[in-house]
């Protein structure tokens, strides 16, 4: 290489290095976390790791010694021994004792993890394909938590943000220094709720409720992901837990309740077609587009098209039934439990008028209310 090329080379190398640093730090170990349990799991992890390292050094040491010193090319003459009961007993007994010494702290930690008694706050966590629902059982507050990373970042059309794939529209908010019990279940397939900093990972199983708990010691934002393969967008259902001081938590709770009350008022408002359509478009992109695609064409046959479909262009009552009750035995969920009447009316109106489904139909919140009453 000519000397004159040196600046170019430096530029190239520094570009490469800069690329590397865009990707952030090289995480390589468990986080110590922010709870007593997460720290004792971290200690357990490191203890056992170091025991393994020591055993590895001894065993591989003997091996490498043999490979280096007992080579035929060095004129080694093979010994003939092939049995020794004493040594066999020793190397059966010693590992057993080492295992016992590992089992003791592991058992202690496990007992701590399983003590879900006497909680201050109970939050029900429900896994859906592919989002989480959090319900604060004592406070009548509940909401969905969706991935908020823009599609353009995932498709590499925009630079990725700092919390790429680990950010949500509405995080779970909890106070610090309170024992929080999670009641974990799922609506469709098995999911798993995992936040490494809390060392909580528990499967969310449809039809069953699992318990876990945490007591966060430092305010902060802790991120995790669904840990059980749950279908197409398994990689896109993150978890964000925001731990706040007790006062901040109360402020948040009050605001949350007021917002919910406002939502309920919307039901009786008179809606125009445009209002329903534009609200419906937002709801659709948040709740429906993952399967039925933003263009309404779906991924047949598992996720059928809405564009031009019989249901979205035929009798409105049938359309409402599908959205509210879901379709048994398919991935189509019963959105009656997930969305408000306003949102269901809006999204149906949107579906019946978007992508050339120009039915001109307008479904208003009261239609959904009537449908629900008739169903009961």
């Amino acid at each position: 290489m000519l000397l004159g090329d040196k600046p170019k080379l430096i530029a190239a190398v520094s570009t490469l290095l800069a690329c590397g640093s865009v990707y952030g730090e090289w995480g390589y170990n468990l986080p110590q976390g922010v709870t007593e349990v997460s720290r004792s799991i971290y200690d357990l992890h490191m203890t056992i790791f170091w025991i393994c390292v020591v055993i590895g050094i001894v065993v591989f040491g003997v091996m490498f010694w043999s490979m280096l010193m007992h080579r035929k090319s060095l004129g080694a003459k093979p010994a003939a021994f092939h049995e020794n009961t004493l040594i066999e007993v020793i190397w059966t007994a010693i590992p057993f004792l080492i295992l016992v010494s590992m089992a003791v702290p592991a058992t202690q930690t496990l007992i701590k993890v399983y003590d879900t008694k006497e909680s201050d706050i109970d939050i029900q966590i429900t896994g859906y394909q592919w989002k989480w629902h959090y319900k604060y059982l004592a406070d009548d507050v509940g909401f969905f938590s969706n991935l908020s990373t823009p599609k353009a970042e995932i498709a590499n059309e925009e630079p990725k943000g700092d919390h790429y794939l680990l950010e949500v529209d509405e995080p779970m908010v909890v106070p610090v220094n309170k024992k929080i019990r999670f009641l974990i279940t799922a609506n469709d397939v098995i999911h798993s709720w995992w936040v490494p900093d809390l060392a909580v990972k528990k499967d969310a199983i449809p039809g069953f409720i699992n318990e876990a708990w945490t007591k966060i010691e430092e305010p902060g934002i802790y991120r995790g992901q669904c840990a059980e393969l749950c279908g197409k967008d398994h990689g896109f259902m993150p978890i964000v837990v925001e731990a706040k001081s007790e006062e901040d938590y109360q402020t948040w709770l009050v605001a949350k309740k007021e917002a919910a009350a406002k939502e309920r008022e919307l039901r009786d408002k008179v809606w125009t077609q445009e209002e329903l359509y534009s609200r419906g478009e937002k709801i659709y992109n948040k709740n429906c587009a993952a399967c039925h695609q933003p263009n309404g064409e779906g991924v047949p046959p598992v996720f059928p098209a809405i564009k031009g479909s019989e249901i979205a262009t035929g009798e409105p009552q049938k359309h409402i039934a599908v959205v509210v009750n879901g379709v048994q035995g398919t991935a189509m969920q019963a959105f009656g439990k997930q969305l408000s009447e306003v949102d269901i009316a809006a999204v149906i109106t949107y579906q019946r008028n978007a992508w050339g489904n120009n039915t001109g139909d307008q479904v208003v919140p009261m239609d959904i209310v009537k449908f629900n009453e008739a169903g009961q």
Partner: protein
Amino acid sequence: MSAVIDDHTHTADDHHHGPAKGFMRWVLTTNHKDIGTMYLWFSFAMFLTGGLMAMVIRSELFQPGLQIVDPEFFNQMTTLHGLIMVFGAVMPAFVGLANWMVPMMIGAPDMAMPRMNNWSFWILPFAFFILISSLFMEGGAPNFGWTFYAPLSTTYAPPSVTFFILSVHMMGISSIMGAINIIATILNLRAPGMTMMKMPLFVWTWLITAFLLIAVMPVLAGVVTMMLMDIHFGTSFFNAGGGGDPVLFQHVFWFFGHPEVYIMILPAFGAVSAIIPTFSRKPLFGYTSMVYATASIAFLSFIVWAHHMFTVGMPLTGELFFMYATMLIAVPTGVKVFNWVTTMYRGALTFETPMLFAIAFVILFTIGGFSGLMLAIAPSDFQYHDTYFVVAHFHYVLVPGAIFGIYAGIYYWLPKWTGHMYDELLGKTHFWLSFIGMNLAFFPMHFVGLAGMPRRIPDYALQFANFNMISSVGAFLFGATQLLFLFIVIKTIINGKKASAQVWDGAEGLEWTLPSPPPYHTFSTPPDIK
């Protein structure tokens, strides 16, 4: 693959001199050597197919963001990669080795049930044709992971799941028939004087493996049948809404699945236990304890299944039982490793390709064992479970464990099978590139797993990017290197140097008393056992 030599020393009334000619030879053959050869070629074809899918996975994971495939197809790739590697590559390769070597090692003329042997092989290509063809069906191939947890694999599965169930049934039938054959052969066809405790360890490990297969393949058949019933006949085994339990699926699956992972490693233990003494020029240390350790591992494999399910919400006592039982496996496994190391100690070592693979097997399998021990600790498992740490762990036991074990066995016995020596330089090149590629691919997965990357995701957060890129580079290197192996085998068959009957100067066992290649029929009269 085997060159064929007519053995004219037969008596006049023996009409079976040699194989038929042409394609029908392979379709109709009942000869254990032919069938072993077909198993090995089939398994290599599946290894490349499953490997190709791994390359798709690693290409998508090369950088964050979605570049090459969509998430739906990515899930089909992870599912088929796992299924093909487990049932199509590793298991048939071991059956191929058993077919070739077990009769020759115990002085038997053939397998006990030669016609059934033909069937157990010929079912396999059809089973995998069905499985792979599901890629082209409407709705795509199975996309629920090789562990196919319900209800994702029942209510929420693509229509091709029914073909997947049929294909798993066929694989199961094939395995069960193969296992019955191996047990019958070992128990009934040993040459006079070949007592059980004189059998080579490869025969012992396969005998135990065959019992594991017979015990658990019907369980797998049961669980896929329950799925079939749930999907098509209105039952609710795995549907809580109908009174069933999704966790039941996991219990039944892992009752099959955990012994299955030992099915994929025990025969490798046997091969390595033949190879290390040969190239150490020293008898295997602790033969008896090796047999008992293998049997203990097999027994323990039946009582540890729920360590795959520490996060499903078992009661505390259940967690403790499965944690302690799992930790216990470290004891017999440790005994095996110590015995191999002691066999090498004060030997006269040389490092031909089979020995290199065997040594790498011991070291890397032990590292996989260490991460296995870490995973056994239930509270820590809450952090490791379903992350790349687990992916690293089982690839460390399966790639340098099962696959390196198979490679070690193939390089060791290839001169015997073909009568030709492989090219040592190329063999060593294959080893070193595989060794480097494999470690580069899988070691960083420990780090991203601990740092919090879940498995089975097509896209990931930015802090995992650097290690994923290294993993992908390693995987590409490892994948490409396996084509070199194909070249080495073909070159050996076509123009390798002639091999002697003994092949390796330190090797012991009946197979080395036969010429290389052995005649089409061997031990028509039983050999004398010292």
